[in-house]
């Protein structure tokens, strides 16, 4: 819907498709220059942090999983880590490895979903992957099968793909036998090759010019590409323990959304695959570095449109890492550590497919939760998405509303926003005066 008058127009689109959740974007243009960009998030509040109060510490992984059906493992993992921190429990090394394996499953599933079903259609000018499949059935099939291998890991280790049941604070209810994992390893070998083909495929897309300025923030671990363990690092040199998160990153409640916006003390920042790649390139295995080189991606990359390549590289990594874990796997003596409750506060941070996910819980001596804080990646990215769109829209004001909307949606999808996490997402309106 448009009304144009001299040098000014208003544009609004009912809702943004192919993101998880729903929302809108509002752009104000005056005298040919963009004044304000606002992402409006519609998802009505579900009040997790409120109703967690009074619940038992053992319930947190199951409950917080339901914040997001696309990345439930991320919620379970950050929750477990925070509760274990509060209780002063360290988990067994094999259990830690199994958690990483489970997380690899979610990365593969979520990234394959995003690359093939949500984002690639933008680059190739299709409305959906189903349309894309009409012309390129084998490519979409490859994406679906890749996604399925991620779900295979979640099924074998977690019991099911969405809201796995096998995760508990302290570890798992049941550790898999070596033989349970063998068939998954078989499929992962295919998946690793398919992921490499994916990276080569997406690298042929056309990438609009855009530079992500500001700080990039991710977990960092010296010995591995960080997923579920590490310190919080940034491209401007931040290096803090997870428990210092609240001192550096605040949340702000703005009128236009039910998601709380992330604010670093120093301004807008970005989390997610690009941040991880820029901060942790050295920790990637050789095979991934090789593919990156083949497709012409350097060790740093700040074009958000190229995050689709980075996601593909992270799928190569996750397949390779899952294979490494399965190869080295010996069932732990016990599937979980004892977790007697202990009064205190604990922090947890892990890398959801979309970026850093922070949880904090305060529990009493009986294990009852008195306070819960959850900061999802999309909430942290929201100011940065808005900031990035500002320039993006400015350079494209000559476009008609349809094309501008399409391009904005594509740009927003660079961040793989999860509106149900941050809470719901796009209905573009440009107020051109």
């Amino acid at each position, binding site marked *: 819907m448009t009304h144009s008058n001299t040098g000014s127009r208003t544009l609004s689109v009912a809702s943004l498709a192919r993101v998880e959740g729903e929302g809108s974007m509002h752009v104000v243009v005056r005298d040919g220059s963009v004044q304000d960009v606002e992402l409006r998030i519609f998802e*009505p*509040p*579900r009040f997790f942090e409120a109703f967690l109060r009074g619940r*038992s510490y053992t*319930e947190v992984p199951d409950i917080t999983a*339901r914040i997001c059906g696309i990345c439930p493992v991320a919620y379970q993992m950050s929750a477990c880590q925070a509760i274990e921190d509060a209780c002063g429990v360290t988990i067994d090394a094999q259990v830690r490895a199994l958690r990483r394996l489970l997380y690899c499953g979610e990365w593969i599933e979520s990234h394959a979903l995003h690359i093939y079903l949500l984002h690639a*259609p933008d680059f190739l000018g299709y409305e959906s992957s*189903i349309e894309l499949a009409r012309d390129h059935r084998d490519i979409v099939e490859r994406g679906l099968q890749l996604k399925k291998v991620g779900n295979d890991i979640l099924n074998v280790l977690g019991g099911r793909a969405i809201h796995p049941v096998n995760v508990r604070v302290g570890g798992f209810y049941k550790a898999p036998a070596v033989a349970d994992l063998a068939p998954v390893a078989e499929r992962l070998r295919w998946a690793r090759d398919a992921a490499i083909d994916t990276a080569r495929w997406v690298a042929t897309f056309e990438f609009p010019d855009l530079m992500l300025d500001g700080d990039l923030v991710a977990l960092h671990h010296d010995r591995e590409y960080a997923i579920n363990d590490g310190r919080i690092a940034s491209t401007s040199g931040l290096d803090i323990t997870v428990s210092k998160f609240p001192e550096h990153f605040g949340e702000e*409640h703005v009128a236009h959304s039910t998601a709380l916006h992330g604010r670093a003390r120093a301004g807008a920042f970005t989390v997610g695959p690009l941040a991880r790649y820029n901060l942790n390139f050295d920790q990637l295995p050789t095979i991934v570095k090789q593919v990156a080189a083949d497709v012409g991606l350097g060790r740093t990359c700040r074009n958000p449109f190229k995050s689709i390549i980075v996601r593909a590289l992270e799928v190569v990594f996750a397949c390779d890492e899952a294979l490494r874990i399965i190869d080295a796997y010996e069932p732990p003596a016990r599937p979980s550590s004892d977790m007697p409750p202990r009064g205190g506060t604990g922090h947890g941070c892990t890398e959801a497919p979309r970026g850093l996910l922070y949880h904090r819980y305060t529990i009493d001596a009986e294990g009852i939760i008195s306070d819960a804080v959850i900061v999802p990646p999309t909430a942290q990215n929201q100011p940065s998405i808005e900031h990035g769109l500002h320039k993006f829209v400015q350079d494209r004001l000559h476009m008609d509303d349809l094309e501008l909307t399409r391009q904005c949606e594509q740009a927003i999808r660079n961040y793989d926003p999860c509106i149900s996490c941050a809470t719901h997402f796009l209905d573009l309106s440009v107020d051109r005066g």
Partner: protein
Amino acid sequence: MQPKLAVWKFSSCDGCQLTLLDCEDELLEVAGQVEIAYFLEASRAVVAGPYDLSIVEGSITTADDVERIREVRRMSRHVVSIGACATAGGIQALRNFADVREFTSVVYAHPEYIHTLDRSTPPSAHIDIDFELHGCPIDKGQLLEVITAFLHGRRPQIASHSVCVECKRRGTVCVMVSKGIPCLGPVTHAGCGAICPAFNRGCYGCFGPADTTNIPAFVGALSAAGMSDFDLVRVFRTFNAEAPAFREASMAAEAAEDRR
């Protein structure tokens, strides 16, 4: 002409609609049999109603939702609710047991920006529903059966017995009998294939109550297996807290707890 399929989202985690995209082996085939007329998570293309089959995920939590779900009904020949959110209000229905203003002030610095209803309700509280599929999340095999059934004009064949039957079928030894683990299997709706007991864990009821259950008679067994009244309140008051049989059970346990 192909039947038109629409997928609608209300308050939810997106997990149930993702189940459709998780049908990796069947998705393109299903897409070949229907016209995906409205499914925002999957496509930008939006085709106007009426729709032959509308699948609804999520619960009703805003005044706008109430309008929207009525509109969905008006535009659709069949409406199917999927998941605990859309059949029982979901976990966000925990607000129904509390003060929503208090909840808002816990989460948001500016509660005045937030517009939400006091209660989270399933679509069936507002419109007629043709079929309800349970689970948090739903099972993908069951989802495919429901879609296929409606496309062929027949009733979906979805068993209404308890998770116990599925354990027997799967060959899982009863965790309650053999290990003394409290398990909601006997009173929980089948559909998942009895996942939890196969992982040494008691069922926590994510598929909601089975069609015919006698929870009061079963609660004694749960207490004997070591669950306190406090545990009982919470296990019934989670993902399907507003399903009538579970609501009664949690209220009864709460009353018992208060008496102590």
